[in-house]
């Protein structure tokens, strides 16, 4: 038994030795070369990892940019947001127009800034009234950052209390009589912009006839059933809405009078903003536009105006004090004579 074990051990040992011999013979590369190869392999793996990581890191910004552009361009999201912003300005800001051609947009990582200049017609000339910057995160706007260049700017938060136009049935704030004195003290060689509130509701055409040809009605405030109480059904103060009465010759203005009258365009805009009211209210800096209540009211009762923004020679505007249709007046901007 012991002899057998010894024999097995010898056979096993010889087998192992044979295998080691075989292994050593099969390796044509010496140890030094093997080390060099391993070193080279490690170096290549490192380079490959660095380069691939670098490539992936460098793809992040272009990838995000592309994603942002796709988000805003596909389905016309950016154009839709721009349309809401510009149309809101036309119907919520008295006597303010804008050059849509000059509107600039800047798309960042899933955010967009739009920037445009706004103008006011005083007398016969348009004056730059300011610059608006609206920042969007995805499709939600922040309150616009306004750089106003006016002498008597409108308040930042639009509401009836801070407004310059008052409904015939609404209480008028005291002390408005001094405004006529202010107009009287202005020299004749000036043109002015005034905000008039009417004694009764009337059609825009009727108002133009009442005021005569020596002044120009720029923007009319429309009665929407909420102006008397000045709050919507939830108790939020509402901002006045209206539309420009004169045709705007600017190519991209919706009030260019090519296909529809300004009244029809106004109703279309309200219907459009009704579907995007949250954004529109933010851009109008109003707590509520209450379009869900206002649009059906306008459809049912028609468009009647309760106030307007009028411009013309100061001497002609003074004469409006005798006009019984006018309840109150507030002076806006005044410029040197340009009434040609």
């Amino acid at each position, binding site marked *: 038994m012991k002899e057998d074990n010894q024999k097995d051990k010898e056979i096993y040992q010889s*087998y*192992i030795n044979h*295998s080691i011999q*075989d*292994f050593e013979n*099969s*390796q*044509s590369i010496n140890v030094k070369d093997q080390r060099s190869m391993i070193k080279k*392999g490690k170096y*290549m793996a490192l380079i*490959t990892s660095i*380069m*691939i990581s*670098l*490539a992936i890191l*460098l*793809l992040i*910004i*272009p990838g995000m*940019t*592309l994603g942002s*552009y*796709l988000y*805003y*361009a596909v389905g*016309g999201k*950016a*154009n839709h947001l*721009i349309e809401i912003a510009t149309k809101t300005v036309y119907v919520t800001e008295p006597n303010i127009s804008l050059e*849509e*051609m000059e*509107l600039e*947009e800047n*798309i960042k990582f899933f955010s967009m800034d739009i920037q445009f200049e706004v103008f006011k017609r005083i007398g016969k000339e348009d004056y730059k009234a300011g610059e608006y910057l609206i920042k969007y995160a995805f499709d939600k706007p922040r309150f616009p950052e306004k750089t106003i260049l006016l002498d008597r700017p409108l308040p930042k938060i639009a509401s009836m209390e801070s407004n310059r136009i008052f409904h015939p049935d609404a209480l008028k704030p005291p002390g408005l009589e001094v405004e006529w004195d202010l107009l009287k003290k202005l020299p004749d060689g000036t043109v002015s912009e005034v905000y008039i509130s009417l004694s009764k509701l009337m059609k825009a055409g009727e108002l133009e006839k009442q005021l005569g040809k020596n002044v120009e009605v720029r923007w009319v405030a429309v009665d929407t059933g909420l102006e008397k109480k000045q709050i919507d059904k939830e108790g939020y103060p509402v901002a006045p809405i209206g539309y420009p009465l004169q045709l705007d010759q600017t190519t*991209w203005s919706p009030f260019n009078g090519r296909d529809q009258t300004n009244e029809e365009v106004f109703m279309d805009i309200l219907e459009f903003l009704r579907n995007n009211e949250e954004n529109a209210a933010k851009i109008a800096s109003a707590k509520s536009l209450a379009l869900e209540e206002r649009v059906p009211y306008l459809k049912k009762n028609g468009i009647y105006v309760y106030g307007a923004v009028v411009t013309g020679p100061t001497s002609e505007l003074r004469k409006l004090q005798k006009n019984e249709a006018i309840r109150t007046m507030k002076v806006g901007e005044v410029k040197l004579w340009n009434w040609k």
Partner: protein
Amino acid sequence: MELEVKSKKKKRQRQRVPTVTGLLSFVTAIIALAGLNIALLMDYDEFPDFFLIKLPLVGLILGGIGLFTQKRSRLFSIWGMFLCLFIFIFTFTMFGLAWSINPKP
């Protein structure tokens, strides 16, 4: 079980060493991509055609050559070509998308 050592076979295996053209293609693509990143971060007004057209074109050609080189790893060639193609697709897609946003003459 037997201890068997495979004898060295001289198979025509693809080596792990990348092609020189592939490596150059990858490096070119990374430089172009870095240029694109800088242009995007700086909000650069002028069109950086060197980084968006010329370099990726060179990278694409080098990558193409590297792809057909025998006995070498094609990894870098594929990466180089992928990145160069991405830059081209990015450039032309961005043109189209930017044009469609606020399209006024």
